[in-house]
């Protein structure tokens, strides 16, 4: 008991500088943002009232939630397939899957966004190829719209969605799957009725992480959305840096942080932090 206590004190001491840094770099400035939201341009709840009535703000909020939801479904589904191969595939498949998961981490988000533009634009690889095989006559609009944003964001988030799933799949008792097959269940049926439900905590963790990350995306939607599908982070940026509307920008930020905080609380109720890495 004594050992764990002093271990904990030691860990706390080691963590202290980090905590101090986080407070100075994020919490303190954020308090300033909270203050602006109640004081600019005039003291009161005016900005929060505007937030509830401003149609532009509301449409951006709804779009953000919609995109985050779609990106979550796409990312978790793709990550699930990759993780199954990574955790349960043959040795060669495992190496390939691991490569697919790790490579995106080595390329910056900016590079990746421009990469997708090159692939998906009107004269990009995808459109030229589809035209050359005569599948389409006019180029498809794949970028500078919501579709492009969803593709780019999912691509970025899939590796993050993999880890909670991998941890759930690794802790699964192999014998339970054998038991299902021994009782007469086909591989397909065993996958859907036993394997997937048993990795439920991983799916929830993975979905919450993806969703929370999606809400704060800035670079990817700014580049791949081409100003036509503005998301909440970009809206905050526009309000604060390109118009004198600091109060409204601050109020949007506060709502976003509170919302994300609530989701994080939910996340930690379902998954232990160590399952996320």
């Amino acid at each position, binding site marked *: 008991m004594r050992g764990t206590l002093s271990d904990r004190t030691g860990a706390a001491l080691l963590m202290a500088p980090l905590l101090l840094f986080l407070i100075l770099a994020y919490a303190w400035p954020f308090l300033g943002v909270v203050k602006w939201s109640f004081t600019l341009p005039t003291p009161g709840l005016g900005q929060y009232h505007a937030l509830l009535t401003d149609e532009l703000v509301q449409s951006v909020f709804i779009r953000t939630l919609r995109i985050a939801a779609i990106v979550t479904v796409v990312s978790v589904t793709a990550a699930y397939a990759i993780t199954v191969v990574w955790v349960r595939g043959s040795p060669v498949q495992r190496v390939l899957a691991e490569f697919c998961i790790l490579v995106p981490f080595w390329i910056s988000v900016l590079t990746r966004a421009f990469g997708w533009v090159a692939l998906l634009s009107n004269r990009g690889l995808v459109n030229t190829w589809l035209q050359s095989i005569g599948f389409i006559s006019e180029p498809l609009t794949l970028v500078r719209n919501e579709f492009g944003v969803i593709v780019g964001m999912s691509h970025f988030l899939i590796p993050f969605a993999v880890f909670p799933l991998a941890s759930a799949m690794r802790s699964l008792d192999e014998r339970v799957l*054998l*038991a299902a*097959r021994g*009782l*007469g*269940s086909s*591989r397909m*049926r065993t996958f859907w009725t036993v394997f997937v439900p048993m990795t439920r905590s991983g799916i929830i963790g993975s979905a919450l992480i993806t969703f929370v990350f999606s809400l704060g995306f800035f670079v990817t939607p700014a580049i791949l959305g081409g100003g036509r599908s503005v998301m909440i982070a970009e809206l905050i940026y526009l309000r604060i840096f390109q118009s004198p509307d600091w109060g409204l920008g601050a109020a949007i930020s506060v709502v976003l942080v509170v919302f994300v905080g609530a989701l994080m609380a939910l996340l930690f109720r379902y998954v232990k932090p160590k399952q996320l890495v």
Partner: protein
Amino acid sequence: MQQPGRAAEIKANGIGKSFGSFRALDNLTLDIGRGEFLTLLGPSGSGKTTFLMILAGFVQPSEGRLFSDGVDITNRPAEQRAAGMVFQGYALFPHMSVEQNIAFPLKVRKKSAAEIKSRVGEMIERVGLKGHEKKLPAQLSGGQQQRVALARALVFEPGVLLLDEPFSALDKSLRGQMQAEMKRLHQETGTTFVFVTHDQSEALALSSRVAIFNHGKLLQVGKPDEVYDRPANRFVAEFLGEINMLPVKGVRPADNGATGLCEDRAVNMRCKAEAIKGDAILAIRPEDMSIAPEASANQNGIAATAVASTYLGAATKLDLTTRQGARVTVSVPNEVAAAALSKGNSVWLTWPAEKGFLLPDGGQ
């Protein structure tokens, strides 16, 4: 519920299994009779689980063929073999209630909702889980989880039930209770049971036959009393319980069995000496030896010195050393042990001729 005729008859013919260069099972040939209760007994790593996995279809044998009711099932996938299996650690579906766990094999077989309901209800009653239908496995005690696993494996009336050390996680009294219940389920269902354990008393108490494994080899198969009283070799003799080993010299056939010299005294054995001649080992169970007041010419016996005693309640275990230095253990009534120790420790050990059996000299 089940007609004994539906129980499967299994033949394993020259089954072998290698993991890389490691031989987990070697040339195993074994017939498992319809409706029998066969126990696979052996030390850890002897290949019991591997053989069970081959029977279930989860592991493919490297050589040999497997037949069920005369049909070759060697290449049949597990899901088509319809063998019930109870895993070590139970392997229940953690996200399903007791009821759903037991209904699973019936749902897979696309039985009607009404049939599922009645058969699951019947099974729950039979294994004594009434009132626990809606609980998840994590909310059950070890013994209750065990019952769910048994019910789930029996509800679809499999031709054979495979059990891999199902009681190893239970405490002793619960273990005894579950053993009795399993014996009852075997009688009621008439299904062929193949049961794995490394507890020899459990094996002897439950089975109609016992198969003893060591290092991937099947050493002996037989009824419990056969293997206990007439083990084929030294390993089996020692594995099934405590046993005394005395060297005998000059073994030769005699009237009614064999004769030889043990500690320079002539001893008689009832077993045949054809296979064993010359020097051998005479094996006698501790409970078959007794202490006599003095030597008697027409009875097997040797002199020994008592060195220690252990009081066991109903009897006393006496450790002795013979003149030539062999260690012997006997189990005798308490007052006999007390008398032996008080008489200057020198005693006379005897045993009936039919209780001693010969094993080849020098091990296996």
